[in-house]
């Protein structure tokens, strides 16, 4: 197995990572100015961007590995924060692999074995398709405001957007990252950059948003690069190719039986 690190990312960021089975995040086009908000209030706004509802996304994940780049395309059906179904479309070796998330459980189906395999324990710590994310990263459902204390740490402009830098320090023992530094768009409450640190203070992963677009009246991060800094390679780039909000979901999609269909 490739070295993967048991790290989690919040729904807010997981949303951009499209294989991602948790809800993508977006905000209404008219965001509130956050100048007067406390860091905790900003964090709550970031959490609230994980808009519940149903959506269908087609996304591409390009892994910049040591042997070159590899792009995996997938379609995801997402309902709220707890239900998601993903089918891999390309390349041929991955085509037909499916994943189902129901609450805190995750299964995968591979046509090569005709097996439905529960992803738990050690497997959760493995890299998703060789990317810079682990399955565990994708399974994080807790809101940042519930597990982190926020403090101001300056400001910076990213992609021509003024951002407020928050330093988040875990107040629970089981937080995957003890400290995070997040660059939050002052108007849209979008996370534009993130650094995740372990308890030792070592930088573990970074996220850099590359593009933000307004789709269906919401601002969506449509391109991001996630990098596991402990791993060789140049990170994994996620791109949303299309997203359809409030699309009708096929009945019985979110069941293990649908994995074999």
């Amino acid at each position, binding site marked *: *197995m*490739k*070295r993967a690190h048991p790290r989690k990312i919040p729904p807010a960021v997981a949303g951009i990572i499209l294989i991602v089975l948790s809800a993508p995040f977006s905000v209404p086009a008219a965001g509130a100015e956050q100048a007067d908000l406390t860091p905790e209030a900003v964090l709550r706004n970031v959490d609230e961007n994980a808009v519940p509802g149903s959506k269908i996304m087609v996304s591409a994940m390009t*892994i910049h*590995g*040591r*042997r070159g780049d*590899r792009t*995996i395309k997938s379609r995801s059906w997402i309902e709220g924060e707890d239900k998601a179904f993903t089918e891999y479309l390309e390349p041929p*070796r*991955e085509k037909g*692999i499916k994943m189902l998330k129901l609450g805190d459980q995750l299964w*995968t189906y*591979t046509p*090569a*074995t*005709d*097996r*439905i*395999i*529960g992803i*738990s*324990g*050690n*497997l959760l710590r*493995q*890299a998703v*398709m*060789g*990317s810079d994310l682990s399955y565990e990263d994708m399974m994080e459902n807790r809101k940042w405001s519930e597990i982190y204390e926020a403090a101001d740490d300056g400001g910076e402009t990213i992609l021509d957007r003024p951002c407020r830098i928050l330093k988040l320090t875990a107040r629970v023992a089981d937080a995957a990252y003890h400290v995070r530094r997040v660059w939050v768009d002052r108007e849209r409450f979008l996370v534009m950059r993130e650094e995740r640190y372990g308890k030792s203070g070592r930088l573990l992963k970074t996220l850099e948003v590359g593009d933000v677009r307004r789709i269906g009246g919401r601002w969506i991060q449509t391109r991001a690069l996630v990098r596991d800094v402990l791993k*060789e390679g140049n990170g994994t780039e996620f791109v949303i190719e299309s997203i359809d909000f409030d699309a009708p979901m096929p009945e019985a999609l979110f069941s*293990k039986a649908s994995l074999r269909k």
Partner: protein
Amino acid sequence: MIRFLFKGLLRDRSRTLLPFLTVAIGVLLTVFLECYITGAEHQIIDFNADLLTGQVKVMTKGYAAEPDSLPNDLSLDGVGTLLSELGTDFPNMAWTPRIRFGGLLDVPDEAGETKAQGTVLGTAADILMPGSAEIRRLGLENTVVRGRLPEKRGEILIGEILADRLKLQPGGTATLIGSTMNGAMATANYTVSGIVRYGVRALDRTGLVMDLADAQAVLDMEDAAGEILGWRTNGPYERKLIEAVAARFNGRTEAGSGGDLAPVMKTLRDQSDLAALLDQFSTVRGAILTIFILAMSLVLWNAGLLGSLRRYGEIGVRLAMGEPKGGVYRAMLGEAVMVGVLGTVAGTALGLALSYYLQAHGINISGLMKNAAVMLPSHLYTRVTPVAYVIGFIPGLLSTLIGTAIAGRGIYKRSTASLFKELET
């Protein structure tokens, strides 16, 4: 003169037999101990070479930099061509590719869903090819405790503790989940043909062995392998020869393109901290041999002293008859050299004969290994080296000579005037 002394030795066996036997037995033990310790050292080398490191191993530079993390994304490409080139360039070496990989073994229930999962550390080797030496090198025949060796594609061996934990028996099926060479998810179903017990907890808890072709298929490594291991075919491991092979290969490849995917050859000593282990072993070996040789030297020195003392009267008579003290002293040294040489030659011959026999046949200790907690070879072998031919001369010849020389100093202390008085008593 030498002939005269030699005749004396032969005719007065009570004077020479004991020193001769002492020297011969001491030298025999010294030679055998040298061969036994060398054998043990080489068994450590062979054991690691067969199981893990080869005498040399070809990897990519990137793979060699972090071999413990099994970075198969940095595996060797074009293994067929590389093997062919290695065979041509180094005709006295045997080469074989292997893949080591990590993953999970998932056991299905009746409905085909996950019943149990366990982490595995897999080794893929050419175990299905007729005449392949890999089964012997990996010690598989002796470690299968249930079931049998794989006989066709799709069959695997797993460690005993892992099998017990996953409740897998020979004939059971399991799915391997791993990563391909390109980082994609790799999954395939296998039948467990046998359960192995290495006696090493880590191997029994996570060990998985499969055929190389199976691993290449599931890990998307066609014509690729993580490692190519090499062994000398015309003799045992020789550090200098092996280092010369590696230097020649690396000298050639360094001239070519660099980068993480360029091949590099590492010797056994360059891997798994074996250099430190072997150096430590050599130090301990040297200490044991030194102590033993010193002890044997003391014994033989003492034998020389005793011989001289026993001949106190004889020396007195010879001096009384007018033989010069220097002549007596030199005659005694000459006799000591003869006894030492004869005893050493005899002891060395016997020690070498015993060592050669055990080098070929070994000592079967499998009966002692049934409940062993660590993985050890079933036979212990000696190893005869050029050193074994000469090492016996240190205690055998030098000690006898020095012992006699020191004891013989008494000749010069004896007063000729009092000799008859001494002889009267």
